[in-house]
């Protein structure tokens, strides 16, 4: 079946504007993750959704960042009042988890966000 998809692939915005990034996980995957990858850096965990449980928001860098997952499927990451330091590639991943054990995460191609 289809892999993880993300849209848009590229987003250029002006400082202070809000942006929404979308992730469509693999059908049937119960877990969904958002990461941020800055130039030359590793992946920075942002947020994790698992089924109907409350999301793990421990990685969100500020209250300008929020995310939701509707119907246990599609997720939207929202960044309010964007700043230049928000420029990065935002990656989404999904996984089919059993008993909360870590397992392979399948990544989307990412959204490259540029804040001018």
């Amino acid at each position, binding site marked *: 079946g289809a*892999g*993880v998809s993300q849209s848009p692939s590229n987003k250029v915005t002006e400082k202070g504007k809000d942006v929404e990034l979308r992730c469509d996980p693999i059908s049937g995957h119960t*877990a969904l*993750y958002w*990461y941020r990858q800055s130039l030359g*850096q*590793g*992946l920075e*965990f942002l947020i*994790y959704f*698992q089924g109907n449980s409350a999301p*793990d928001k421990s990685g969100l860098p500020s209250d300008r960042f929020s995310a939701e997952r509707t119907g246990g499927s599609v997720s939207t990451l929202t960044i309010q009042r964007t700043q230049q330091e928000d420029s990065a590639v935002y*990656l989404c*991943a999904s*996984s089919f*988890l059993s008993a*909360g*054990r*870590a*397992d*392979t*995460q*399948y*990544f*989307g*191609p*990412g959204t490259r966000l540029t804040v001018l």
Partner: protein
Amino acid sequence: AQSVTQPDIHITVSEGASLELRCNYSYGATPYLFWYVQSPGQGLQLLLKYFSGDTLVQGIKGFEAEFKRSQSSFNLRKPSVHWSDAAEYFCAVATSASDMRFGAGTRLTVKP
């Protein structure tokens, strides 16, 4: 706190040469261990993973990794590198579904 270290930021090898990419982790118990590859303009793809059992793990594209508990390491190896292996490689460590940590990555350049 759990951490993952990839000591080599950039490695250059000649095509056909062997490769070893290092990964060390810091955690009290044996975590789940992963290696991912990110080719230019591509998403991350799983190469291999270790959960338990045989400490030598075979992956895709001819890669293997060996878990060494005594050294807290999970180094990635390939006996003969191909030009198409040029990419960024990430080691990842997880203790649970919500706690996966990635290393900073090692960029591999392959010389003809």
